[in-house]
């Protein structure tokens, strides 16, 4: 779709079902990762330092060409490079299933749950769902050029948000420490608003419009210039304001609509008169608006609703993108449908929009049990919506009842656990990982190799790899599979 490469990175939470657990979530994360690589042999662990926080053995590439690793103590899965929404949805779900199956095989299912969300209610911790979109190097990566993108991103949460009970500490209560803004919870203080429910998990944690860092000072648009491809041709738009979605439909609509808006910006067709006056505040106000009027103040002093703003983007996309391919037309049709339904009863969105599904479940339970919004049970149900254990998770309960539209199938997800998309660079990388797995015994990344030389047997990164004894093999174009070249290169290693 869209002549675009998509990718998702998901950090997972681990919920331990014990009052006095013997082990921390990070201990379980290590066990799960080790099971995936050492027992199930799903991929090859890194043997080199990828960065100061990624020592050898911290994670590795999988046969599906994605990655599983530990990041700040969290299990994280990065999907392979995908050229279609169908593939990215299947690859994203494949990551969920890889991790859940490891938990099941380890016999941890009763002790620990994998939670695909972005917050905890107790400490104000947050962890991300990052979106990646490949664009041309000529993309107007400036405040002015990206003003329409900011407006779109601030308002898209009305159909991409996963919803949460309560709120995090107020943004203006954050404390300046050198160049960092840190939440008061760092010092054991909470200043959260007394909100029953809001539509976004991440909105409370976004404190900048543009910034280069990914922890603290999170921005609507992350400005780190790391294309993971030929930097003369490409730029990677890296977004960290979005929520992890349980609904396949929401995942596809989030990536699809954002991809279309990036196209409108690239082609000079994005609406230019919708610049938001205070985008960071608007992001939080929309999320927290209990009346769901979602009003936004523009720099022109005009007030518009997030729905009307989204309609303007949709109109532009219909005018300039309709008919270019099947997935684009699906996105346009579903975008229109969701916006129309958002003007009515939110219950029409159940199964498609995560915050709507969650709110409906919570309201049903509240009504049945006569609970008010302050009851701690609602926070626990909030978490349970994101539980990846199919027999427990509330999202999977909705799915079981036939209330959730699917964009992929279980069989395709199982394939995506092992196979890469066949039309991107991931395909060539997958061949490399499978070759390494078939030819070598598992290597303990924590131990020095005794086969001579300082260079490890292999080094794999997103855009280049090297196998010992051979020159580096660059893969700068994510749209190429490099399959034949990779095979030839590996044959010469064997020879």
């Amino acid at each position, binding site marked *: 779709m869209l*002549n675009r490469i998509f990718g998702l990175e998901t950090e997972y*939470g*681990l*919920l331990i*079902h014990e009052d006095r657990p013997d082990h921390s979530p*990070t201990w379980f994360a290590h066990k799960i990762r080790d099971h995936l690589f050492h027992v199930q042999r799903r991929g090859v662990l890194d043997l080199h330092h990828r960065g100061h926080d990624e020592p050898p053995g911290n994670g590795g590439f999988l046969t599906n060409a994605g990655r599983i690793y530990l*990041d*700040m*103590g*969290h299990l*994280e899965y990065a999907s392979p490079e995908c*050229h*279609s929404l*169908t593939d990215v949805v*299947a690859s994203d779900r494949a990551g969920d299933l890889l991790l859940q199956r490891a938990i099941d095989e380890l016999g941890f299912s009763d002790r620990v749950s994998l939670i695909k969300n972005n917050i*905890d209610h107790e*400490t*104000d*911790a947050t*962890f*991300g769902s990052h979106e990646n979109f490949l664009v*041309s190097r000529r993309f107007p990566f400036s405040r002015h050029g990206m003003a329409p993108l900011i407006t779109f991103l601030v308002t898209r949460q009305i159909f991409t948000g996963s919803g949460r009970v309560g709120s995090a500490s107020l943004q203006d209560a954050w404390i300046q420490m050198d160049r960092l803004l840190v939440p008061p919870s760092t010092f054991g203080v909470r200043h959260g608003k007394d909100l029953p429910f809001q539509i976004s998990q991440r909105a409370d944690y976004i404190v900048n419009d543009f910034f280069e860092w990914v922890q603290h000072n999170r921005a609507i648009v992350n400005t780190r210039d790391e294309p993971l491809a030929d930097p003369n041709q490409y730029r990677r738009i890296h977004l*960290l304001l979005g929520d992890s979605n349980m609904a396949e*439909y929401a995942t596809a609509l989030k990536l699809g609509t954002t991809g279309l808006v990036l196209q409108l910006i*690239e*082609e000079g067709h994005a609406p230019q008169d919708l610049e938001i006056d205070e985008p960071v505040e608007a992001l939080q106000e929309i999320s927290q608006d209990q009346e769901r009027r979602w009003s936004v103040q523009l720099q022109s002093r005009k007030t518009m609703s997030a729905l009307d703003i989204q309609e303007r983007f949709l109109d532009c996309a219909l005018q300039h993108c309709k008919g*270019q391919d099947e997935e684009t037309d*699906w996105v346009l049709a*579903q975008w229109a*449908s969701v916006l129309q339904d958002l003007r009515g009863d939110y219950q029409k969105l*159940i199964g*498609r929009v995560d915050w709507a599904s969650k709110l409906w*479940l919570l309201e*049903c*339970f509240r009504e049945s049990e006569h609970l008010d919004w302050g009851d*701690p*049970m609602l926070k*626990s*149900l909030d*978490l*349970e919506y994101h539980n990846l254990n199919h027999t427990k998770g*509330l999202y999977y*309960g909705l799915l079981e*009842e*036939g*209330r959730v*539209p*699917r*964009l*992929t*199938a279980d069989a*395709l997800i199982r*394939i995506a656990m092992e196979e890469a*998309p*066949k*039309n*991107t660079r991931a395909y060539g990388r997958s061949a490399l990982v499978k070759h390494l797995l078939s030819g070598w015994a598992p290597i303990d990344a924590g131990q020095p190799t005794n086969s001579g030389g300082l260079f490890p047997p292999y080094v794999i990164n997103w855009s280049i790899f090297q196998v010992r004894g051979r020159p580096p093999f660059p893969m700068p*174009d994510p749209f*190429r*599979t490099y399959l034949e070249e990779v095979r030839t290169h590996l044959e010469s290693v064997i020879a």
Partner: protein
Amino acid sequence: MRHSTIPERRERPVDPMPKSPHPLEEGGGPRRPETGSPDKDSLMKRMRKVDPKQAERYRQRTGE
């Protein structure tokens, strides 16, 4: 391709990952959910099984 700014690719995509039979049609792909008066019994049963204290236990490290 309608992009004017993305350079032409040097390689045409080959067979993509197999897709669901009818990804965009009724029956095989996205459908509007039935939102009339659903049977909530099984969902209520799931929700009643949830440990009320689990949110207190869920303390994560801040990530990215």
